[in-house]
């Protein structure tokens, strides 16, 4: 045992340290939680709008801010372009900002996040829409009711859609010519599609894969489920919404509309779901299509424009993408997704959601209206990097330089097939998407793997849907 010599002076010194530490801890504990907003200079009184970074470059941000300033010089606007690889990543970053106490006032939200934001974070726009009904009449007349319905949740409207993308089929015209095939008819069937892939394969080398697809919620397996008249989750409509339909849409266009979509019971083991997976597995087995993990959007433009892929599902956004990649307007064309049991197609839409935490809700509503104006969207969507939600903006002039020849397909997917609907995106969408991607990978390993993988998918989807977000 060592004999310690604790002098009175030392004792007093350590006592003072202890008291100081206790005082600091007590002070810290008694303070309110500090957030990012407490950092001096962080909140400059601007209306903050969070957008998906890759879709909103500096030019787009300048267009939005300068245009808005002209209309509302009294409202200071700041666009916060959040860099993210996809919508899931984008929402994760927005939620992190909210957790840090630096929530934006408005968030650009796609179908994937509409219900999550509506349920937990969003403010219904109903009272403002009713108040400014006259001003908005022109907008609703120009936008398909399905797009508007996809932005509703349990009877209330949460966003005004400004863009959408339906999964149509892009075809490489050089590959078509090489295969000696004609451009498919609008009512082509799944069998026509399969025959075309075989023709393409026969006329091309070993480094060619006719059908390329990406394993994701939008544009992956889901369009095939829709074509086979089924879905991953049972789909129904919430009651309500008549306040909007009766105000803005004629009787023939509001028929069957409700208060927004509901996706509830998982049905991965449904016979038609299994049939769709079995079909894709057979295409892979025959060498007519890429495996799910093999496809991703990053290298798609390269392999499509160089003729190593013949067909791929994509939306209006790809017209601009292919044009920017140097593909000529006549190098590709677009047709509807092929018919199976139905020709229902899938889409995703996007618009601005107003957050409950915002203290500038009136200003935010002014921005929402401004962002949905035709002149704003015309200035913003100059390069066909998406499909505008306003029908009147889809003109021959818009697609003259970039193509495709059948550009009408983009909006006719809604107008000619009114049952075309949004991808299934309940509030639990993140986990649903993860389960879908994971089990799609194993389901398509072989045709025998389909049924067991779908059973596991069903089990995981049930767990995901039981969980509260």
């Amino acid at each position, binding site marked *: 045992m060592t004999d310690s010599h604790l002098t009175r002076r030392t004792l007093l010194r350590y006592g003072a340290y202890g008291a100081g530490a206790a005082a600091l801890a007590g002070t810290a504990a008694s303070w309110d939680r500090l957030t990012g907003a407490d950092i001096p200079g962080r909140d400059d009184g601007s209306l903050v709008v969070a957008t998906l970074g890759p879709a909103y470059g500096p030019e787009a941000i300048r267009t939005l801010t300068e245009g808005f300033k002209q209309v509302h010089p009294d409202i200071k606007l700041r666009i916060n372009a959040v860099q993210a690889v996809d919508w899931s990543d984008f929402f994760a970053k927005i939620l992190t900002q909210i957790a840090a106490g630096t929530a934006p006032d408005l968030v650009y939200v796609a179908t994937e996040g509409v219900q999550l934001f509506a349920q*937990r974070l969003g403010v219904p726009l109903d009272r403002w829409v009713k108040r400014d009904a006259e001003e908005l009449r022109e907008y609703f007349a120009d936008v398909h009711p399905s797009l508007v319905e996809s932005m509703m949740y349990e009877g209330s409207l949460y966003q005004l859609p400004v863009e959408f993308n339906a999964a149509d089929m892009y075809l490489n015209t050089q590959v078509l010519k090489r295969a000696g095939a004609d451009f498919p008819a609008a009512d082509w069937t799944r069998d026509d599609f399969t025959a075309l892939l075989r023709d393409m394969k026969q006329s091309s080398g070993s*480094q060619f894969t006719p059908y390329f697809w990406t394993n994701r919620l939008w544009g992956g397996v889901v369009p095939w489920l829709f074509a086979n008249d089924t879905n991953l989750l049972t789909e129904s409509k919430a009651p309500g919404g008549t306040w909007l339909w009766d105000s803005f849409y004629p009787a023939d266009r509001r028929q069957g509309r409700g208060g927004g979509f509901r996706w509830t019971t998982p049905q991965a083991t449904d016979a038609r779901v299994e049939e769709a997976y079995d079909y894709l597995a057979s295409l892979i087995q025959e060498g007519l299509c890429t495996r799910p*993990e093999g496809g991703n959007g*990053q290298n798609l433009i390269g392999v499509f424009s160089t003729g190593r892929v013949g067909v791929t599902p994509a939306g209006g956004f790809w017209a601009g993408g292919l044009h920017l990649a140097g593909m000529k307007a006549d190098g590709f064309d677009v047709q509807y997704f092929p018919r199976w049991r139905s020709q229902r197609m899938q889409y995703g839409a996007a618009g601005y959601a107003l957050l409950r935490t915002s203290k500038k809700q009136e200003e935010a509503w002014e921005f929402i209206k401004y962002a949905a104006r035709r002149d704003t969207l015309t200035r913003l969507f100059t390069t066909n990097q998406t499909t505008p939600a306003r029908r009147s903006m889809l003109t021959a002039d818009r697609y003259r330089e970039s193509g495709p020849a059948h550009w009408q397909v983009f909006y006719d997917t809604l107008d000619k097939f009114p049952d075309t609907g949004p991808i299934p995106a309940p509030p639990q969408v993140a986990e649903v998407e993860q389960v879908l991607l994971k089990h799609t990978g194993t389901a398509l390993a072989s045709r025998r793997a389909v049924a067991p993988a779908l059973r596991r998918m069903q089990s995981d989807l049930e767990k995901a849907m039981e969980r509260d977000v």
Partner: protein
Amino acid sequence: MTNTQIPAVRLKQPAAPPAAPPRPSARDRGTRLLATLFLAPTIVGIVVFTVVPIAGSVVLSLFHWNVIDDPSFAGAANYGEVFGDSTVLVSFRNTLVFMVFAVALQLLIALALALAVNGRMPVWLRSVFRSAFFFPLVLSAASISVVMKYLFNQDFGMVNWLLGLVGIAPVPWLTSENAAMATVILVYVWQQFGFSFLLFVGGLNNIPKEIHEAASLDGATGLRKHLNITLPLLSPTLLVASVVGIINALQVFEQPYVLTNGGPGDATRTVVMVIYESAFEQLRFGEASAVGVLLFVLIMAVTALQFRLSRRFVHYQ
């Protein structure tokens, strides 16, 4: 009279008061203050960026929190969820498999190349090799993985194209359950072995040449010299390289996330991927923290085991 011996009473000598520690001189006090000041940024950094987040994770693992609502106390419920979740258990298995193969391969390749580079060769060539082997380490793991994803693409990748030139059928590098993990390990090892390589080169240079010369005089051959001299004397470096390698491998994220996104199925899903997905995609921060705490315990246990074993296998000169 009996001669009785009176036991000598050894009187306890009064203990001399312990010498009071010499009062530090003004110069010593100044040196201590200076040392404290130099250490302070590091200590503050460790406390703020390591100790506090670890403590925060432990606390958060006892709560349900989805960012949007206030946290609610959950006790050990998150740990119960974690142990009942097959994805989490598979991710731990995958991570351990990854660690064993990746670290073993990394150390073997690094050691072999370090021995080769340390052999007879022109100085400039040695410098070229050292730089070339270290270079991948300075690149971002995410960008390397993106490039590798292109190269190993089953349908359009250059690797399969080259194999096709010699008549080998396309290999499902990233799309088969067995091949995907092997490919992720290969990509990881390719990028990471440069660190161990540099450590080994430094360690080899520290082994006195006289020992090798003496062994040669005694008739030891090349392999025998490596086994009986080089490896034992390099064992402290091997310990450092394996400890760092194992800690890094247990935290692998970028390569499987970019190359396979954890697939096919869960074949390449790692623990850190599960933490990321639970927290930032599914908003289950409590469960994510519980998995993080378990990973922390695993890393501590493996590292402690390594140091314990090192007493038997590591030789210090």
